[in-house]
Structures are given as C-alpha cells and as structure tokens.
C-alpha cells in the first residue's frame, strides 16, 4: 500500500508540465481560433514523438503498456493549461470504448493508429436530449441483408468535426451496439456548434440511412451496454483528473493575483474575507486530488470499486473545479469578467466538464444506487 505517485510517475508529470509550460494564454487562444479548435502541431507532438496517446494502451497495439494512473497524470497536466486537444475524445473516451467493446481484431485495427497519434475518435454516444449515455440514445441500427443501416441523431460529440472515425452508440434490437464509421461516410452530416466552452468543441451529427458492413459493429450485436458502463467510468475518472489539474491551476492564478494586487494600501490577499475563501477552495482542491488519485488507482487495480470511485471522483472534482473557477472570477474583480482574462475560459470549462458524462447531481444519485440504497427519479442530466 503506497498512496503516493512513484518516482517514474512523477517524472511523467514533470515532463508533461515542462512541455506545456509554454502553452500560455496566447497559444490557447490561437488554438481556439485554429481549424478544428486545437493546435495541430502539439497534437502531432503528443501523439507522435511523445507517445501520449499510447501511454495506457497495451504493447500489443503499439502502446507503452502503462495504466490509467499515468494517463490521469497527463490529464491533470492538460487540465492545468486547459489544453484544447483531441486527446480526451481520442486517447481517453475513444480508447476506453474500443478497449471495452471491440473484438481483438478490431482493437488492433483501431488502437494501433491511435498509439502512433494517427487516429482521432469522435464518440457519438449522447442523444439529442443531452442525457448521459445510455439514456436517450436516438441512433438506431437495423439490418439490411448482410449490411447494417444506421439512422438518427447524436449530439455533443467532442471534436466530432475533425474525427477520423466516429464511434456511434445506437439502439439495436432490445440492446445497444457500438459501431465505427470512417469520417466522410455517405449519409453522415456533421454540424459543428458554437459552444460556451471554447476549449472543447462539439458537434451534432445526423445519420441518414448510413449503410455499413456488419464488421462496423464493435463486439456482438446489442451487447454494448455493459462494457459501455466500464468505459464511461474510465472516462469519468480521467475527466475528474483533468478537472483537478485545472482547479489547482486556476487557484494558483488567483492566489498570485491576490498577493500582487494592492487596494487600501494592502495586498488583497491580506484581507481575511478573501483568505478564508481561498482556504475553502484549497480544501476542496486537496480533497479532489484524493478523489481523483484514488479513482485512478481503482481503475487500474480494483475493477469492483470502479463505479463507486468514478461517481465520487467525477462529482467531487467537477464541483471543486467549478468552485475554484467561479471563485477566480469573483476574486479577480472586474478583470475576471473580461474576455481578455483567462478566468472565463476556466469557468466555462468547469461548467462543461461538470455536465459531461453525467452531472455531479446525476453521479450522486448513481452512487447511491451502486451502494444499494434504492433509487429515486433519475436526474435528467
């Protein structure tokens, strides 16, 4: 039992932090304005020479064979800088869906290019109502002779407009199936949104009688519901890690400002009203780190605790991030409300991360069910 990162793990963290040190506000804003909403050069560097996309993939797919603990360290560092990147959609959510749902041959085919940084996934798992998957899935698969036909709408697809392959969750028979569709397939219409969170673009995707080969289905027909849950929990845990990194960073930025800004002849940070709010935020951040780190361990070592740990980490870390980002806007005063200052970028990411894959309220209701405490009406989001 050692609940601290190892030397090797800390080296991964410090290498990532060093690389992203130069990812400042100007670079982030340039990325937001770039085609696809991310910096292509950084994505190539992360996926190619650094091997980040394959970090947690088994060696047989060309990965480094490390685990979710290491992946979550990268997520924390990416979160600190709000890096706008296909990493979460591809190397976290997409990889988890393929690992959990696909056959060995399909994994080989989809994950090997990911490990080389040459695969961007768009995960079309959410229906148009925006309910956490698998609630409200609209897309449906019907058999058409030897092939499959896909129709319906998915929404809130992260980096859906630049994906190489779409992973689409669809109803089939009485169950759920996951299919992979190459970008540009006939009948697939991708409509990019303008999102409140500028750092994580999303699209609505309409499927109009898309014809697919039976081999597009990952795993057995209608059998995706169970592996989907595990994949979603892994993604929630990694999202929690990202939130923790961002929360910690936005708190640091706020602390620096309070030390330097003088009013009434004193640094703002010497006023107890502001100190106490900062102390409360740090208390949340420290507890959030414990939640995220434990969940990453559970993802790696204790599958039986994964659902509980994911619900705890996703709800607590996203709440903590929101508190810190909201506190940052308030404690910066007027400048915190401007477009020019980065506080709003953190605030908007905090809101978007809280919603993604089930809100904190939704996670807490789910937690009680996991613990066997019965059920109340399902929260909508």
């Amino acid at each position, binding site marked *: 039992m050692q609940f601290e990162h190892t030397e090797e793990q800390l080296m991964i963290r410090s290498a990532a932090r060093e690389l992203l040190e130069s990812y400042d506000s100007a670079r982030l804003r340039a990325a937001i304005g770039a085609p696809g909403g991310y910096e292509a050069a950084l994505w190539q560097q992360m996926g190619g020479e650094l091997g980040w996309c394959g970090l947690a993939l088994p060696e047989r797919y060309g990965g480094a064979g490390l685990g979710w603990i290491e992946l979550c360290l990268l997520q924390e560092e990416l979160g600190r800088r709000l890096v706008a990147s296909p990493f979460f959609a591809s190397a976290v959510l997409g990889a988890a869906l393929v690992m959990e749902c696909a056959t060995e041959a399909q994994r080989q085919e989809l994950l090997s290019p990911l490990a080389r940084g040459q695969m961007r996934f768009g995960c079309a798992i959410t229906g148009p109502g925006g309910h956490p998957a698998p609630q409200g899935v609209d897309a449906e698969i019907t058999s058409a002779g030897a092939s499959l036909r896909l129709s319906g709408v998915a929404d809130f697809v992260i980096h859906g407009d630049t994906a190489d392959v779409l992973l689409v969750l669809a109803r089939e028979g009485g169950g759920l199936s996951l299919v992979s569709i190459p970008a540009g397939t006939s009948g697939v219409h991708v409509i990019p949104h303008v999102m409140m969170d500028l750092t994580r673009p999303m699209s609505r995707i309409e499927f109009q009688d898309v014809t697919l080969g039976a081999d597009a289905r990952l795993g057995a027909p209608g059998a995706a519901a169970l592996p989907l849950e595990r994949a979603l929990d892994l993604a929630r845990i990694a999202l929690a890690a990202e939130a923790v990194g961002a929360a910690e960073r936005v708190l640091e930025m706020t602390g620096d400002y309070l030390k330097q800004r003088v009013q009434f002849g004193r640094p703002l940070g010497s006023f107890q009203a502001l100190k106490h709010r900062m102390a409360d935020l740090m208390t949340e951040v420290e507890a959030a780190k414990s939640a995220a780190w434990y969940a990453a361990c559970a993802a790696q070592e204790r599958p039986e605790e994964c659902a509980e740990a994911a619900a705890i980490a996703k709800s607590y870390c996203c709440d903590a991030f929101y508190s810190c980002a909201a506190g940052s806007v308030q404690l910066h005063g007027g400048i915190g409300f401007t477009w020019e200052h980065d506080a709003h970028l953190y605030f908007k990411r905090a809101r978007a991360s809280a919603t993604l894959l089930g809100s904190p309220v939704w996670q807490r209701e789910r937690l009680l069910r996991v613990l066997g*405490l019965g059920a109340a009406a399902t929260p909508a989001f």
Partner: protein
Amino acid sequence: MQLGFTPAEERFRSEAAGWLEAQLSGPFRDLRGESTFSAHLERRLEWERALGAARYGCIGWPAAYGGRDATLAEQVIFAEEYARAGAPWRIGHMGVELAGPTILAFGTDAQKARFLPPIARGEEFWCQGYSEPNAGSDLANVRTRAVLSGQGAQRRWVIDGQKIWTSLAQFADWCFMLVRTEEGSRGHKGLSYLLVPMRQPGVTVRPIRQMTGEAEFNETYFTGAVTDADHVVGAPGDGWRIAMGTLAFERGVSTLGQQMGFRNELDAIIAAARANGMVGDPLIRQRLAHAHIGLKLMRYSALRMLSSAQAGRLSNEAYTYKIFWASWRKKLGELAVDVLGPAAEVAAPTYEWELLPRLFLGSRADTIYGGTNQIQRNIIAERALGLPKEPRGS
C-alpha cells in the same frame, strides 16, 4: 501508487482480525460498537489494558517501548480491522496519539523509557493541558506559570494556573502541558512543555457541562502542583515548537480510527432513512451521497497523509484535513436530525440523547476545538497558500 497489500500484510490482517473477533465476541462483547467518548469507564480501561497486553495498543511504536515497529500498511490494516470489528473508541487516545508520539519524537531516552511502555500497556492515561480561559484560539497567550525550585534531587517544577477543556482529565494519570517558564515572556517565547502527574493535591478537576448535557470537558486548576525537573520535553523555552509537533501528530493514523466512528453514525442515519422512508427523498439522497463521498475522501486523504509522512513530508492535505472533517461532521449532524424529524428532538428524562441527536449537538464543537474553522482558514491561507499574515494587535 498502489492500493494492494502483500501476502505478509494480509497474514497480519487475519491475525489482527482473529484477535479482535475473539475479544469482542468473548470477554469484551459488551463493548462492541461502543462509540461514546467515555461511558463505561472501567470496562474501557480494561479494554485498553487488553490491547496493551496483546501489543496492539501502539503498533507503530518501536518494539523496545511496547510497539511492534509496524509499517504504515500494517497500521492502516489494523485501523481497518479495528473498525470492521466494531471495537470501542480508544479512550487512551491522548496518550497513544498525542503524548506518546511527542515523547517519541522530542523526548530524552530516559523520558521514553519512563513514559512510553505504560502507555503501550494501557496502564497510564493522559490528558492535554493547552487551552486556558484566555488562551483559546490565541494559544500562545498561555499564562499558567511553572518555576523550578529546590536543590539537587529535590529540584522540581512548581505549577500555578488554570487549564480548560481538558478532556478525560477526571481519570488521567498524567497531563502534557504548555506552561510559561520565563517570567515576563510573551507570545510563543518562554513556554515549556511539561509532563505533570494528575493525582496530587495541587491538581483540582471540575467538570464543565456542555450543550449536550454531558460533561466530557473539565476545568483543571494547578495550585502549587509539582513535577520532576527533568519532566520537560525539549529545552525549557522550546515548548511552542513541541506543542505544534503534537498538533501535527493529531493528523496521523488516528484519523483512520476516527473515521470508523463516523461510519457508524452515517450507517445509523441510513438505517433511519430506510426505516422512515426518507431514503426515497431526492434531496435527502443527495445529502446522503455527499456524506458518503466526504467520508471516503477522508479515508483517501488519510492514506495520502500517511504515505507522505512516511516519506518524511507534510503534504498540503494535512493542512486541510481538520476543517474538512469537522465541517463534514457538522453537516452530518444536520442530516441526521432532518432524516429523523421531530422525533430527534425528544430527549431521555435525564436530558440524555440517542446517537443521532447527540451527533447533531456534539458536532457543533467539532469546528471549534483543536483550532476553530476560522483559525484553520488562517493557517491554510498563510502557510499553505502563502498569503500575507494577519496583522497582530499590540
């Protein structure tokens, strides 16, 4: 980073679990699940002696002083098994968790040899003499005086003053105290850390009745009380540093033990909510989930603190741990009475309370003692976040 245990550690687990089960289904079955602070005093003292005799009293201490040189993992395991077995709250915790570790870290060899083995055997019990009527949050304002008098073998500290909030003082054998030993000194300078026997004519203990109706705290008066000249931990005048060290030990393995009591309280709330149907109320459900999450986070944070402490570091969560658990438990108390409804407000004829109303009332103290939430926030802001210090009055 890994959560698992080795086969040797698992063997230790089954050995400890076996012993606890045998005791708590045998000679100590009446104490199973005992969560009060000090009820059934005589039986609780017997339990401490039984733990000591089996060398389970202070397993992290060196074997030479009655411990087992247990590793961090073994201490975690023992705390878990202790909780799982429903073993009673440790009435010896002032000695085991505070006095002992302080003496171990800062004491002389003679002090270690004199004081540690009786704590480990469960034979001597301790209380804490820090707070005074005018030294609460401002602990450095301590005024209780101690002066050295006498010559040669007769040289002793003579202590005069008043301490307050001394839990368990009524049956403690010893008190570790912060006293002023330099005439005219102020603030945290000129303080010393003394070990003082409680059973002597110069010490008077008066219980303080609290809002719960119980009397767990005391006022303790020292009127010409004495202790040996060499019963000072650290150098005379160095008491502040030693006392702060004791506060750091409060964040040790004991937190894992404390959490077992919290778990029992939360389980009782869940049982009550199931029984009266409140478990189906969406707002209550959210609060139950928050409570469960908070408790788990305390456990994870305690594991982090222990892991970094073992590597010789005081990590950031150590600063935030107190305010986190205290605020959590106060909310737990409110949840308890919201689940129970009006029934929570009916006391026994002697103004005694069942577990959950007692939690509601008792938890109001959690954010006060051991440093109020407001003092904790100052400490976090100044020491962990590096914000400017509070201006001091003259």
